[in-house]
C-alpha cells in the first residue's frame, strides 16, 4: 500500500444507511481520477481492510478521511477517535455525521422502545425466546462483547474535532467532486474547524425556480393530498417545504420536481437550530388568526391550522435532531413510554 507517495484516502461508515458510500460512486467515471490520485488506506465498503490495519498506521497517516454516520454506539465512537488520530483531515461526510440525520430521530424516544421495536414487537421479526442483544454474553467458549448502545445519537463533531463538513443526505455528486477535485489539485481548502464545504451559504429558496407571491395558507397538506400547481412555491400551496431554513447547494433538487425540501443540507449559515428557524417561517406563511378575529378565538383558530402539520418535531428536525438546541427528548429512563412521541 504505502510507499508510492500518493495521498492516503479513507472512508468509514458509522450510524448511517450506507447511501453516502454510494454517493461517492455517483461521481461517475471521476472515481477513476480519485483512484488515480489517492492510495486507499481504509474503506471497508470498497476494499478489504481491518481495523487493525488502521491501528498499525502512524498517527496522521491518512491524508483525507470521509466519515459518514452518526455516533450511536461505542463502536462508532471508538472508530471516530481512531480515525481522528490517524487522519490529517477528517470530514464529517453527509447529514448523519453532520447533524444526526434520520438515525437521530430516535432521540425522540427511549433506547428501550427502540429495542422493543427492533427485536420484539415487529411483524417481520421472529423471536420466540424474546432474546435482546446484550453488550456482554457468556457462551461456553467464553465471553462475547458487542458494542454498547448509547442513550442518543450524536453528530461526529460532538465526539471528536472535525475539520470539514460536507452536508447532504446524501451529498450531491457535483459537490463531492468539487471538494475532491480541490484536494487532488492542491487548491487550499478554507480554514478547518467544522467548516462547511461543498455547499452554499444561503437558503434553498434562493436556488429554487418556483415563484413566491407572499401568499398565505390556511392549512398544510401532505404530499399525497394535493397536486401542486406547477411553477409556484410549494410552501405557499400548503405543502411543507424546509427551503427557507435549509442550506443551499443541492440546486433545490426536490422542490424542482414538486417535492418540498426535507432539509437534508442542514441549517443555513448563521442559524443554529434549523427547526426553530423553520417554525418561525411557518408562522409567517400561515394566514389564519388576523386582527379581524376576536381575541379569544385567535388561539383555537391557529391551533386548528397547526394541527394539520403532522409530527412537527420529526418534520422540522428530520435531519438536524442531534445538533438541535435540545438534542434529545426528555424521557423517563427505564420506562417504556416513548417520551412525548405521538
Amino acid at each position, binding site marked *: 500500500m504505502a510507499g508510492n507517495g500518493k495521498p492516503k484516502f479513507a472512508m468509514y461508515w458509522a450510524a448511517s444507511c450506507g447511501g453516502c458510500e454510494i454517493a461517492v460512486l455517483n461521481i461517475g467515471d471521476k472515481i477513476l481520477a480519485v483512484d488515480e490520485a489517492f492510495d486507499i488506506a481504509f474503506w471497508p465498503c470498497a476494499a478489504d481492510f481491518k481495523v487493525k490495519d488502521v491501528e498499525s498506521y502512524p498517527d496522521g497517516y491518512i491524508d483525507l478521511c470521509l466519515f459518514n454516520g452518526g455516533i450511536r454506539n*461505542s463502536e462508532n465512537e471508538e472508530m471516530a477517535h481512531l480515525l481522528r488520530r490517524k487522519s490529517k483531515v477528517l470530514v464529517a461526510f453527509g447529514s448523519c455525521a453532520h447533524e444526526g440525520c434520520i438515525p437521530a430521530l430516535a432521540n*425522540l424516544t427511549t*433506547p*428501550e422502545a427502540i*429495542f*422493543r421495536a427492533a427485536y*420484539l*414487537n415487529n411483524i417481520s421479526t421472529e423471536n420466540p*425466546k*424474546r*432474546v*435482546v*442483544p*446484550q*453488550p456482554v454474553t457468556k457462551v461456553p467458549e467464553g465471553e462475547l462483547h458487542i458494542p*454498547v*448502545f*448509547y*442513550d442518543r445519537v*450524536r453528530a461526529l463533531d*460532538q465526539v471528536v474535532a472535525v475539520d470539514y463538513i460536507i452536508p447532504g443526505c446524501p451529498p450531491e455528486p457535483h459537490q463531492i467532486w468539487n471538494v475532491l477535485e480541490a484536494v487532488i489539485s492542491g487548491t487550499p481548502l478554507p480554514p478547518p474547524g467544522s467548516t462547511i464545504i461543498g455547499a452554499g451559504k444561503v437558503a434553498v429558496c434562493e436556488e429554487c425556480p418556483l415563484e413566491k407571491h407572499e401568499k398565505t395558507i390556511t392549512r398544510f397538506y401532505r404530499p399525497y393530498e394535493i397536486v401542486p400547481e406547477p411553477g409556484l412555491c410549494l410552501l405557499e400551496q400548503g405543502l411543507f417545504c424546509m427551503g427557507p431554513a435549509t442550506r443551499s447547494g443541492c440546486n433545490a433538487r426536490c422542490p424542482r420536481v414538486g417535492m418540498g425540501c426535507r432539509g437534508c443540507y442542514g441549517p443555513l449559515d448563521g442559524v*443554529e*437550530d434549523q427547526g*426553530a*428557524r423553520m*417554525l*418561525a417561517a*411557518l*408562522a409567517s406563511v*400561515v394566514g389564519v*388568526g*388576523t*386582527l379581524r*378575529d376576536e*381575541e379569544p378565538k*385567535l*388561539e383555537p383558530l*391557529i*391551533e386548528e391550522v*397547526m*394541527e394539520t*402539520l403532522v*409530527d*412537527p*418535531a420529526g418534520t*422540522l428536525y428530520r435531519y438536524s435532531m442531534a445538533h*438541535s*438546541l*435540545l438534542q*434529545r*427528548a*426528555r*424521557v423517563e*429512563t*427505564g420506562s*417504556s413510554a416513548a*417520551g*412525548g*412521541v*405521538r
Partner: protein
Amino acid sequence: MSATYEPVIVGFLCNWCSYRAADLAGTARLHYAPNMRPIRVMCSGRVEPDLVLKAFREGADGVLIAGCHPGECHYIEGNLKALRRYVLLKQLIRQWGIEPERLQLVWASASEGTVLAAAVNRMTEQLRALGPLRWQQTVLGGDGRPVAAAVPKAEAMATTMPEEA
C-alpha cells in the same frame, strides 16, 4: 424534587405593553412571585423560537412570552406572529417531553400590571407542581455526554416487557 426548588421563569416582555405592565406592578408595589427573570424585547414578535428553546436548554423551568393585546401591537401584527409561533412551539415541545404549561403567553397592556403579576403567580405555582426541568443535567447528562443505555437483560426483558397489542 427538592424542598428548596424555586422555579425559574424566563419572561420575554414587549417594550411597549408588558414591560410597562411589569414596571407598573413594581411602582404599584404589587406583591407577586419573584420567579420571573424579565427580558425586554421590542415586540413579542421579536421572540424567535430558538430563544425559547435556548432558555429551556440553559436551565429555565418555564418561558413566558408577554405582549400587547391583539390590535395594539406597535408593529401592527408582531403579536399575531408571536401567537402563531407559540401555538406551534407548544405542539413541538410536547414531543420533546416538555409539558405545555412550561411555555405560556399572556397579553398585558401597559395598564395591566395586575394581569401580568397574576400570570407570573399562576405560572410559578404550576411550575412548582411540575418540578424542575434542568435540561442540561437531566436530559443531556450533565456534561452533555451520552451515557450507555441501560439495556435490560434478555430474561428480564421477557418478563418485564409484555407483548404490545
